[in-house]
């Protein structure tokens, strides 16, 4: 079992010895039970750190902010940032390393194993408890969670409230870390692409109808893009103007920038936005599920990314985020790559 005190001790030492600038972890929020990201700078503040089955966020996303901030500083603090990662999050770190977006020496990785479970799906939890307020949630001894409400404690099997992505997770432990808390379990899902089965059984027309309905809801708040650690581009096709514009950018360059996607949240534009994003995540998405979780309109975005993950696996034998030294999926060509889809 992951020991929270051990986590705090580790974090405290890192800060005391000034080995890291700050540590990105989880702390209790003010809005109900959900934790919030914590940016811990002082050793005494490590007391705020928590670890429970609602520590859903992929904190790797904040490395993007850190990099942008550092780029602006004249004399940046060169020490690494401490980062708490779960298994899926650690694979996001690997992708960022693979793409040379970050350097290994700029992060100190505190890995936390999800051991035999994973994190809870907030929406499933709310449904399961039928309006009862959760006071506390912990990992159970076996494959389950201990949920405390005003009516006392119940043990809920993980199958009922575990996030779907955790049910399909192929590595419940960090694959890259400087310190690891918890054990490395040997659990493989029966079918890592099980959630796709229903969608794949639908006809082309049915799928079209489904996605039309779903993407019509999109209000283009871009929360899916904003929360994604892979959406770090300085220039994104959906923005009217972006980080890449500097005083040296010529008027021609700005004027010639094609508007690929209009700002109007209409079906055609929403489709272009979401499909461009999905394609850009092929071979990069590590299925942290954050895009789907943050969507205020519950668009099942994970389907899109999971489908492409499956394609990458089946066509190219590519697993995302296990090896930072391996060339990325879309930047390498191999003689034996299948070509039968080119017509």
């Amino acid at each position, binding site marked *: 079992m992951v020991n929270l005190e051990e986590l705090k001790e580790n974090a405290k030492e890192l800060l005391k010895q000034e080995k890291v600038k700050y540590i990105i972890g989880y702390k209790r929020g003010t*809005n109900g039970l959900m934790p919030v990201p914590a940016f811990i700078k002082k050793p005494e503040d490590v007391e705020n750190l928590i670890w429970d089955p609602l520590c859903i966020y992929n904190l790797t996303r904040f490395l993007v902010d850190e990099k942008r901030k550092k780029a602006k500083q004249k004399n940046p603090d060169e020490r690494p940032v401490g980062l708490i990662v779960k298994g899926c999050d650690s694979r996001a770190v690997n992708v960022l390393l693979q793409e040379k977006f970050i350097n290994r020496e700029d992060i100190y990785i505190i890995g936390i194993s999800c051991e035999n479970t994973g994190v809870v799906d907030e929406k499933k939890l709310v449904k399961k408890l039928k309006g009862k307020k959760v006071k506390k949630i912990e990992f159970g001894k076996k494959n389950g969670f201990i949920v405390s409400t005003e009516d006392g404690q119940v043990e809920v099997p993980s199958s009922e409230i575990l996030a779907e992505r955790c049910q399909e997770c192929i590595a419940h432990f960090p694959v890259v870390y400087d310190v690891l808390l918890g054990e490395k379990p040997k659990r493989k899902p029966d079918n890592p692409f099980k959630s796709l089965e229903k969608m794949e059984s639908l006809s082309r027309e049915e799928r079209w109808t489904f996605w039309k309905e779903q993407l019509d809801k999109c209000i283009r*708040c*871009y929360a899916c893009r*904003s929360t994604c650690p892979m959406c770090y581009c300085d220039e994104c096709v959906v923005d009217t*103007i972006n980080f890449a514009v500097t005083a040296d*950018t010529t008027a021609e360059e700005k004027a010639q920038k094609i508007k690929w996607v*209009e700002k109007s949240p209409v079906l055609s534009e929403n489709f272009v936005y979401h499909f461009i994003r999905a394609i850009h995540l092929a071979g990069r998405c590590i299925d942290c599920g954050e895009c789907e979780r*943050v969507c*205020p309109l519950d668009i099942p975005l994970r389907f899109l990314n999971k489908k492409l993950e499956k394609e990458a696996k089946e066509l190219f034998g590519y697993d995302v985020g296990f090896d930072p030294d391996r060339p990325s999926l879309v930047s390498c060509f191999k003689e034996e790559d299948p070509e039968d889809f080119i017509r």
Partner: protein
Amino acid sequence: MKKILRKKSFLQWVKRLESYKIYAPMKDDDFWNFALINNPKDLNLNHSNTVLSPKKIIFPQREVILEFSTSNDSELEVKEILPEEKASIIFGVRPCDARAIPLMDKVFGGDFTDPYYWKRRDKTILVGLSCNTPPSSNCFCLSVEGSPHSKEGLDILMTDLGDKYYVESLTKKGDQLINLAKNLFEEPNAKDNKDLENIHKDSEKKIKRQIQDIKNIPAKLKEMFESPFWDEESLSCLRCGICTYLCPTCHCFDINDEIISSSPLKGKRVRTWDNCQFPDFTMHSSGHNPRSDRASRLRQRILHKFQYFIEQYQNYQCTGCGRCISKCPVGIDIIEVLNKVENYGT
């Protein structure tokens, strides 16, 4: 005008209103949203807070302002496109969302009236529903001069009294709706009035969240413009647009030309919601950006609502609906931010 409507007569009332477009909260899987009601039977007033506020009906996320084209003899033509709206009724408006409408009226009125907004606004009747229990765990209407039974902005306020609704008409528009089905309504008796009073009083006690002392906030914010506080508070902000797009009072918009054909020229100028949390919102075409970091953008959102709007219109630009708190992907909590402001440096 104060009336009683039996719940069993509610459907009949709605049926009498068939000459209007009717909007009401509808459940879509796990959440509620306002939608056009085709069958009065779909109407259900047991909703928790809708994801989007009814502002989207009066101020839609996208609307065409004008169309332009060049004809065969290459003459440029520009055509004004105003919404041709049938009169609408929105049922089930929560008092916080209703209070947001008069705030929008101030923005879209004034020196330059906004014809697109007013075309819809003038033809919309707002029928509210008191919140006997808070529709969200983050409701804080009492802190911003509102209440779970506020009448502000509404034409009718309905309160659930169990097997009947207490229906209070507040405007002529509201009277009209009741008059269309006069026989369905009864006069409230002394007990109804007493029940109403008790339910309203009780509902206030159920609001759990609050801003400590809002009176000092605008002045405090003014002092804190340069404070490092904003850097700290915005550390986890993802710069997404949830907080503002879901807000019932946020009104910022963008205007862009959308081309259907470039030769001959044919296209539309459209207005869409825009968002102070997006970096390109204020970025000049030179690349200069007055609000280039998350801290300045979070500060803008809070200051606009709790300082600038007060200075300009003498109201808070927040009605305490709690949506920005409930839906923030990283738990940024406007109540907590303001409570920290209140205690900052003391």
